[in-house]
C-alpha cells in the first residue's frame, strides 16, 4: 500500500513539475546568470562581465526614463483605478437609500451597471489597445471628431503622438479596462459587511460620505490592499507592456516618452540583440516589483478588523 501510494504521488507530480521546471523555473534562474554576461543572444559564445551590465544600466538614460515611467504607472494606476472602483462599488451597493424598505441598498439598476462595467475585463488587452489606437487617431479618431462636433475644431491633440500626452493616454486605457473588475470584487466585499453597521450609522445621522470613509473603507482594507498589489504588478508587467507596444508609435512613443521597463527589456533582447544586458534590466524590473510589493505590504499593515 505504502509503495503504491508513493508511486501514485510521484506519477501525478512528475509531468506538471517537469513542465513547470523546464519552462518557468529554469529560464528564471538562467536569467539571473545571463545578466552577468555579454551574451548577444545570437551566437552561443559569451563571457562573464561581472557587474559590467549593471554599471552600464546605471548610466543608461533610456533605462532611467523607462524606470521613471514605470514608477509613475505603478503609483498612478492603482490610485486612480481603485478610487474609481471603490466609488462605483459604494454607489452600487450602499449608495442608494430607502428603496424596497431596505436600510441599505444600491442605486437603481446596479445589476446592469455591474455587468456592463465588467465587460472590458474579458476583452484581450490587444483588442482594447487597437480600439483605442483608433479612438485616439488625430485625423479620423472618435475623440477628435467628437471635439470637432462640439465646436472645438481648433483643439485637435495628436494624442498618442504627443510626448506629453502619450503616457497619459495609455494609462487611461489601462484604467478603462480594469475598473470593472474591481467594482465587482469590492461589491462582493461590501456585501459581506453586516448591514447593521450601516443602519447604526444612519441612526446616528451619518452622511454617506462619512459611512464610506468610516465603515466601508476600513472594513474592505484587506481586499483593497490585494487589489493594490495586483494593479501594481499589472502596471509593471505584461498588460502595460502590451498596451504600450501596440498603441504607441515607435513603439515606445515619440522620444521614448512611453517607454517602460518591460518594453525596454523586450526591445533590448529581441530588437537590439543584447540578451545579456536585457536580462540585467529584467533584474532591475524584478527589484522594482518586489520593492513595490514590500512597500504596499508595509504601508498597508493595519490592525485587522474582525466582524
Amino acid at each position, binding site marked *: 500500500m505504502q509503495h503504491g501510494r508513493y508511486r501514485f504521488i510521484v506519477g501525478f*507530480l512528475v509531468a*506538471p513539475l517537469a513542465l*513547470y521546471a523546464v519552462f518557468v523555473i529554469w529560464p528564471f534562474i538562467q536569467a539571473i546568470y545571463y545578466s552577468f554576461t555579454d551574451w548577444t543572444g545570437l551566437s552561443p559564445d559569451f563571457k562573464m562581465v561581472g557587474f559590467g551590465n549593471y554599471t552600464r544600466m546605471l548610466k543608461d538614460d533610456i533605462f532611467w526614463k523607462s524606470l521613471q515611467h514605470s514608477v509613475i504607472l505603478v503609483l498612478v494606476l492603482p490610485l486612480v483605478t481603485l478610487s474609481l472602483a471603490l466609488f462605483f462599488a459604494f454607489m452600487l451597493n450602499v449608495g442608494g437609500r430607502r428603496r424596497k424598505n431596505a*436600510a441599505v441598498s444600491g442605486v437603481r439598476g446596479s445589476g446592469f451597471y455591474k455587468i*456592463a462595467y465588467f465587460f472590458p475585463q474579458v476583452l484581450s488587452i490587444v483588442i482594447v489597445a*487597437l480600439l483605442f489606437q483608433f479612438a485616439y487617431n488625430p485625423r479620423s479618431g472618435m475623440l477628435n471628431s467628437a471635439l470637432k*462636433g462640439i465646436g472645438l475644431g481648433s483643439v485637435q491633440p495628436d494624442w498618442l503622438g504627443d510626448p506629453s500626452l502619450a503616457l497619459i493616454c495609455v494609462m487611461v486605457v489601462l484604467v478603462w479596462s480594469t475598473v470593472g473588475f474591481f467594482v465587482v470584487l469590492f461589491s462582493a466585499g461590501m456585501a*459581506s459587511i453586516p448591514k447593521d453597521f450601516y443602519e447604526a450609522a444612519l441612526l446616528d445621522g451619518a452622511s454617506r460620505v462619512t459611512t464610506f470613509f468610516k465603515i466601508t473603507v476600513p472594513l474592505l482594507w484587506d481586499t483593497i490592499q490585494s487589489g493594490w498589489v495586483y494593479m501594481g504588478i499589472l502596471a509593471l508587467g505584461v498588460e502595460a507592456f502590451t498596451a504600450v507596444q501596440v498603441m504607441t508609435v515607435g513603439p515606445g512613443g515619440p522620444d521614448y516618452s512611453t517607454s517602460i521597463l518591460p518594453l525596454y527589456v523586450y526591445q533590448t533582447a529581441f530588437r537590439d540583440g543584447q540578451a545579456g544586458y536585457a536580462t540585467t534590466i529584467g533584474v532591475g*524590473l524584478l527589484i522594482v516589483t518586489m520593492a513595490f510589493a514590500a512597500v504596499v505590504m508595509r504601508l498597508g499593515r493595519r490592525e485587522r478588523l474582525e466582524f
Partner: protein
Amino acid sequence: MKATETPPVVTVKEPAPVSEAPAPGGKEKGSEGKTLNVFSHGVLIIWAILVVLPLLWAIMSSFKSDDSILSTPWALPDKLHFDNWSRAWSQAHMSDYFFNTIIVVGGSLIGTLLLGSMAAYVLARFDFPGNRFIYYLFIGGMSFPIILALVPLFFVMNNMGLLNTRHGLIMVYIAYSLPFTVFFLTSFFRTLPGSVAEAAMIDGASHTRTFFQVMLPMAKPGLISVGIFNFLGQWNQYMLPTVLNTDPKYRVLSQGLVELANSQGYKGDWSGLFAGLVMAMLPVLAAYIIFQRQVVAGLTAGAVK
C-alpha cells in the same frame, strides 16, 4: 486578468442577500440625499457610456466603408458592408488565426486542468516529504515578472526545437498557467470531504481510479471556475506567442490582429480591420453574456478577504 499574471488572492464570498427588513425610523435627510443621488447616478451613467460607446463604435465601423470611417466617424453606416467581414475572414487570414487559437487554447486548457488538478490533488490530500516545498515552488510563480524569463525561455525552446510550433506554445501556456491553477485547486480539494474517497478505497479502487472517478467529478465547480479563468487568459495571450511563435502560419488571434493593424495601416483597409476586431471580440462577448455569473465568479474567485 491574464492567466500568467498574479491574480488577487481572495476567498470567494457570496454576496449576502440584501436585507428586506424595514428601515429603522428616521426620514430621508432632505437635500443631501437628493443632490448626491443625482450626482452619483450621473457619474455611473457616464462611466457606463464610456464603457459601451467604444464597443458600439467598433461594431458600427465594421459595417462601414473606409471613406465614411475616415470622413464621418460618428455617422451610422449608409448600408451594411458585409464584404468587410468576408474580406477579413478569408483574405486577412482571420479564419487561420481563429483555427490556431482554438487548437492552442483547447490543448492548453485541457492540459492545464488535467495537470493542475493532478498536482493540486496530491499536494492537498497526501502528506509526504517535500510537499510544502513543491507547493510554494508553484505558488511562487504567481509573483515573478514573466518578461525576465522570456529571453532564456526563447533559447530553451529553440534548443528543444519547440519554437514556432503549436505544441511548444501549448506546453508553455500550461507551464505558466500552473501556479494559479495549482493554488486555486489545492485549496478547493482541501474543502472536499475525504470520506467519499476513503469509501472508494475500501471498495478496492486504486488511487488513480479514485481520483478520476470520484474526486474529479466532485471538483467540477472548482474546475469550471479555474477553467474560465484560464480560458480567458490563454485566449487573450499576446506576449508569449509574440516572442515564441514568429511563423506567420501559426499566428494566434491577438498576434494576427496586431499584424492586421500594421498591414491594413499601409493599405488603408480600416473597415477590414474593424471587422477583424469585432470578430475577435464576439466569442468572448457571447461567452460573457451567457455565462456572466460563472465568469465573474471565476475571475474574482480567490481575492483575499
